[in-house]
């Protein structure tokens, strides 16, 4: 069975969330829970590192969209800091690179938060 793995790493006031593996519909709640826990404790600047994410469907994208909306309302953001080829293909094809703040690496996304 394929799973998604989620690990958090704080960097100052920014939280880096690494999402790796395979995120089909059944695995989406893991990401929702991880992001909701951070937002609940007041973290509104999050970098999503998707370099190790092999697969995402519309359910996963929907979960990310909802949380980006939520933190943007509080003046924060969730930036994409790195992506796999498959994830980029989906983000680009369906217009998400225009609305997600998307960078090729986590370092670049962190810099944008710190600028």
């Amino acid at each position, binding site marked *: 069975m394929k799973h998604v793995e989620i690990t958090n790493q704080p960097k100052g006031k920014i939280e880096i969330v690494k999402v790796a593996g395979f995120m089909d519909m*059944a695995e989406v709640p893991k990401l929702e829970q991880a992001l909701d826990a951070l937002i609940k404790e007041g973290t509104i600047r999050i970098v999503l590192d998707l370099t190790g994410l092999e697969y995402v*469907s519309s*359910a996963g994208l929907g979960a990310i*969209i909802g949380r980006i909306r939520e933190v*943007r309302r509080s003046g924060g953001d969730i930036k994409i800091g790195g992506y796999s080829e498959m994830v980029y293909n*989906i983000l680009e094809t*369906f217009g998400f690179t225009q609305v997600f703040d998307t960078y090729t690496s986590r370092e670049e996304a962190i810099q944008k938060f710190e600028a």
Partner: protein
Amino acid sequence: MPKAVFPAEMKNLESMIAFIREGAEKLDFDKMTLSQLHLACEEVLVNIINYAYPDKEGSIEINCKPGQEQLRIEIVDSGIPFRPLDIPEPDINLPLEERSPGGLGIFMMRKIMDQVSYTRDQGRNILTMAKGKQP
């Protein structure tokens, strides 16, 4: 044509996709095409699991027909009539705040697959999709 029938439950999603991927093996698709195929099928199957049988238990029949250059997949359910081709395409140029999450999965499926057709026959929704090798 290899055929399999599954109870329309989320716990069977992985087995359904595995059956389709097995059917795709002959065509030797590249990794990206396989991921796209997986995505399109997940979107269709999740939709049936979530909405086709609101008041009863039901099943999903999958027929895979691997050709020389193309994989044809037929997904059949006996749930409420649902014609995916009638779902309006979401506007992917809207700002995030104005985007509606509804319809994205079906739109993805339609954009990924080379051919999609739908018929309603004897109380069954029959969705036929085809994906060919990338040139």
